[in-house]
């Protein structure tokens, strides 16, 4: 396949990569250097996104006690609520992993099924979070009340909107898998959207400990 070897932006090592068949042990999404370079690019993006969250966490930690006489973390956080959110999101990360596994086994039907389950879990997570936020606001604990609440809603809300974007994105990926089957391109897309999903899961683990757990304990 000379075409691929001389492609416009074939990364170094393209020639020898392309000759390899399915038997070379590398997963489908990594076989074409055009696709694998996108996975590297996405890892770099995740680094920037991680720093985005790092800055929000730092801001939250600085402003955590600045409640201005308003509701404190301990009064506000609803233990059953955030526990449920945590379980749902962690489970969705697991089902997302199962989707990748099915993709690697070439099982389109189950890949789509697990993606759908992951999206549903994501939707229920977002729903629970929206409910939690609405309840807080109803009690007068809105973003404008204190610096603590500004930081809390912004940090957790940024994560929530990332999850919402992830759901839409996963849906678009699902459509493409349905239409085109598991190809080098769709496999890369499924892999990347799952990377994103797992990343959000990791961020949530930090929100769970830094925001919610230490909020109700301290």
């Amino acid at each position: 396949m000379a075409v691929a070897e001389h492609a416009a932006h074939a990364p170094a090592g393209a020639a020898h990569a392309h000759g390899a068949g399915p038997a070379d042990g590398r997963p489908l999404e990594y076989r074409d250097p055009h696709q694998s370079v996108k996975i590297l690019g996405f890892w770099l993006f995740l680094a920037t996104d991680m720093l985005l969250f790092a800055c929000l966490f730092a801001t939250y930690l600085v402003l955590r006690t600045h409640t201005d006489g308003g509701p404190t973390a301990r009064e506000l956080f609803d233990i059953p609520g955030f526990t449920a959110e945590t379980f749902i999101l962690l489970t969705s990360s697991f089902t997302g992993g199962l989707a990748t596994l099915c993709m690697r086994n070439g099982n389109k039907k189950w890949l789509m099924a697990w993606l759908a389950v992951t999206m549903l879990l994501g939707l229920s997570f977002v729903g629970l979070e929206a409910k939690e936020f609405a309840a807080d606001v109803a009690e007068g604990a809105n973003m404008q009340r204190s610096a603590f609440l500004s930081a809390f809603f912004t940090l957790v809300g940024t994560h929530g909107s990332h999850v919402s974007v992830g759901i839409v994105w996963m849906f678009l990926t699902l459509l493409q898998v349905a239409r085109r089957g598991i190809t080098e391109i769709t496999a890369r897309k499924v892999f990347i959207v799952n990377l994103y999903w797992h990343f959000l899961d990791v961020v949530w683990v930090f929100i769970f400990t830094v925001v919610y757990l230490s909020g109700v304990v301290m």
Partner: protein
Amino acid sequence: MPAGFQHFADTYLMWNEGPLIWMSDALIVLTSLGIVGALTYFKRWKWLWREWLTTVDHKKIGIMYLIAALLMLFRGGVDAELMRTQLALPGVHFLDAEHYDQIFTTHGTIMILFMAMPFIFALFNIVVPLQIGARDVAFPYLNAISFWLFFFGAMLFNISFVFGGSPDAGWTSYPPLTELGFDKGPGENFYLLGLQISGIGSIATGINFLATILKMRAPGMTLMRMPLFTWSVLAACVVIIFAFPALTIALALLMLDRIVGTHFFTMLHGGNPMMFINLFWIWGHPEVYIVILPAFGVFSEVVATFARKRIFGYSSMVAALMAISIISYFVWAHHFFTMGAGADVNTFFAVATMAVGIPTGVKVFNWLFTLFRGRIRMQLPMLWTLAFVPCFAIGGATGVMLAVAPADYQYHNSYFLIAHFHQVLIGGVVFGMLAGMYYWWPKMFGFKLDERLGRWAFWFFNIGFYVCFMPQYALGFMGMQRRMYTYPADTGWGTLNFVSTIGAYLMGIGFLFIVLQVLYSIKYGERDLTGDPWDGRTLEWSLPSPVPHYNFAVIPTVTDRDMWWVLKQEGRTEELRPKPEEIQPIHMPKNSGRPFLMGFAFFVAGLGFVFNWHVLAALGLLGVVACMIARSFEYDDEYQIPVEEIEYTEAALGRL
């Protein structure tokens, strides 16, 4: 005039502010009409769209960045001249205080974010793929998005001048001054949105070029065979990736404060303004290394080429670049030693700041040792490089003075500081970017810039620089603070300020000579027929000028550092010429209008947020989402250049 129109004109077009704004309005309308008229008259609309607005070619994107950077250098320079005119004599009321505030704000913001950044991105784009033997960057489509986000971010920022009012709280935009209670106007919103949009583009560029350098190098080009400019881009990209998210958050939180009414940085309800200042400088200090590192890369290329010697201490140069990129994260608090964080914090940041001087010193000595016993040719890139060394050395030395935390209580925010950072930013970044522009200009356009006019520009700019900024060190010691719009005569600052203003005018004349030089050289400049006008050392000089859009007909195999130089020494240059039997069809990315449209959608959304026009903001964001979804479903985004076309192009260039 109907009352409604009067209201609109006064609120948004600021017509009640008087003739200065009317003149600007008239000039902008005339210029726009001129551009539209010329494009229509010469039937160039299609050409503009096909060749430029939709391009994903790294070379063309680089040229667009370069044009934008030069235009912004002009705008920022005019701001500077206005400020220096205002300060030339004591008690002048050429500008009123409010306009002066706006002008120093736009001067700083434009010079850092809309001049220095696109200037380095211009060189990233034009040079890196050619130096590493690639046909484009890793993500050409994303590269176009980066450019258009920069472009529309800069437009949004600049439009504030005639639509709604310029920001006026300094380029650092510190709260609580920038909170809604103290700064109602839309100017500050323009600042926040303009920087936010172009900042997203910068992050994408950082990701793109890091992936490009890590993954797209020609076979045989190991990391330690890479040209030093490419190394400097790698180092700068690492800093971009780790620093820009902090700016994104700082701007976003301040925007929430202003638009939603949160309390991150307010004085009431528990807000903490210092948090903004920390976040801002966690980006802001690495930012100055982002712009200086590529300049260091340029100097390394120029010194080796024009001394005709291998760079001295290549590995230590690489180590110094990486060391600077890491230390740059640990110095930010030196921008506010006077905050009162305590002796321990200040000591840490003072020591870290001084430590940056060590790798920088290594680089300076390596350049000097490369020059030592070299056969030096005094052409324009080399002139600017030689001018850089003493200038940056003085700027670095005053930097170390500022880094001494107890002494900084004396210098803080005085003209001593102003002189220091202009010396490193002009002496380092501007000199470096100009050297790079002169050096790679023939590669971009196929002709050299005129040497004689260039020397006029060089001397005016350099002498002007010292005349302008040396007095400011003294003014700082005499107690003159930054951002004061006028001063009484009995301060005794008049003479030195007058001298400084003369220097600023000399620099302005220098810039005009550069403009003249470009215009003159388009017609009369020496044509570059060999592709290697400077007797260069790296792969880009093995290609014809300008480079065919696929760059390399056959991807070279690299066996040495300074590959092209080695081949020339050994008489083996034929090896890099394409052989007919080796030419294969080339896959290239297709042009796309979507990056432009997406940038425009961001602009619309930004404008909506600036004026709290929520419908417009929502429409803009919908446009952004629509572009992204359309891209997700795009599978056919490449085309193939057939062998015959490549053979034809190469033969026309005399390379087959």
